[in-house]
């Protein structure tokens, strides 16, 4: 399993929007050099390559389009400042670096939201209220995709992270291992376990449904 996965670790996925690995890395290096010199077209190309992937990873974790866009802008602003300020040194791990920034921002936002949710929940218990604009989650009504999204956000944080980095951000397992500072085998195992938990949640949900 590991050998087969390792053989394909750094390949870009064939979605047509990104070049193959060799050309991709050469293009990326060129873009970074030009962006560091404030070439606006190079910066736009970098944003085109990464912004939606950052957005999707944040969206899957936070659930809010507005929060996901704010995170994306915050991440890209930091990246721009670091690159143009000469504080980023290209060592071929740009994706790891960028998505590490993104994951840190997402973690901060998720924890802040969790604190706020706890406060709101405490307040609701204290006052015996249910907020009108806070309906109980009902994935059944919203369809299968909503059920999947609901199951995703109910996974432990580490599991959500590896799934969003792999599927929403479209990163290779090796890049995920690099940005999480974890061995490749650990990341592969974590991904496998996360999928199993996701399946269990969906099965449980389907069993609960009439």
């Amino acid at each position, binding site marked *: 399993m590991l050998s087969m996965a390792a053989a394909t670790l750094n390949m870009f996925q064939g979605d047509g929007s990104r070049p193959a690995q060799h050309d991709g890395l050469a293009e990326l290096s060129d873009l970074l050099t030009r962006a560091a010199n404030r070439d606006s077209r190079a910066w736009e190309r970098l944003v085109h390559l990464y912004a*939606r992937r950052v*957005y999707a990873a944040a969206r899957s974790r936070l659930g809010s389009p507005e929060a996901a866009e704010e995170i994306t802008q915050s991440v890209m602003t930091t990246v721009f400042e670091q690159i143009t300020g000469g504080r980023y040194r290209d060592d071929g791990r740009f994706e790891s670096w960028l998505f590490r920034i993104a994951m840190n921002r997402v973690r901060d936002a998720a924890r802040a939201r969790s604190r706020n949710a706890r406060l709101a929940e405490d307040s609701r218990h204290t006052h015996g209220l249910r907020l009108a604009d806070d309906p109980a989650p009902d994935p059944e009504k919203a369809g299968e995709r909503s059920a999947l999204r609901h199951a995703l956000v109910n996974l432990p944080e580490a599991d959500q992270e590896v799934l969003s980095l792999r599927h929403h951000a479209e990163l290779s397992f090796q890049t995920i291992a690099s940005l999480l500072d974890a061995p490749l085998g650990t990341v592969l195992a974590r991904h496998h376990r996360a999928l199993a938990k996701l399946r269990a949640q969906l099965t449980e949900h389907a069993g609960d449904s009439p």
Partner: protein
Amino acid sequence: MTDHQDSRQTEPDGPTQAGDERMLEELQRLAATDRAEPDLGFERRIAGASAAGGGRTVSHGSGRIPRLPRRIGYAALAAAALGLAALPVLLSGPSPESQPVLASDEALLLASFDLLDETLDLDAPEINSFESLTWNDEWDEQWDDARGSDAHGGADRTDSASPAGENEA
């Protein structure tokens, strides 16, 4: 073949495999939906805002506009508040109640200029020395006289040239 496809191949055969594949396909569709969710101007908006230093964006209906940095917003609010507070004064001038006070202050100021004018020889070489400008008893008396005359209309000297103007000349 991607590593993702590879990971799927490692799943055990049996009834769960089809379920796993369906779930993975659904997960990938969800991810693709999320990547496609932002509107067409998303990249341009992010590129522009990030290169400009990160003015935050907010949704306004179907489009989005950049939100000013908070500090600029506060400064604009403060300036607007000051402007609004000053507007009645600018439009109507000093209130009638305040005019006597202002006239009295102006009269005293003019009287002091007159006093300097009468006492000092502005062309004298020592005029620029500190000692020549030290207050003395004679000035004190003249100052009191000037204040007394001000109370009887002595302040009506708006056409008098200021010593400062002479000094400049």
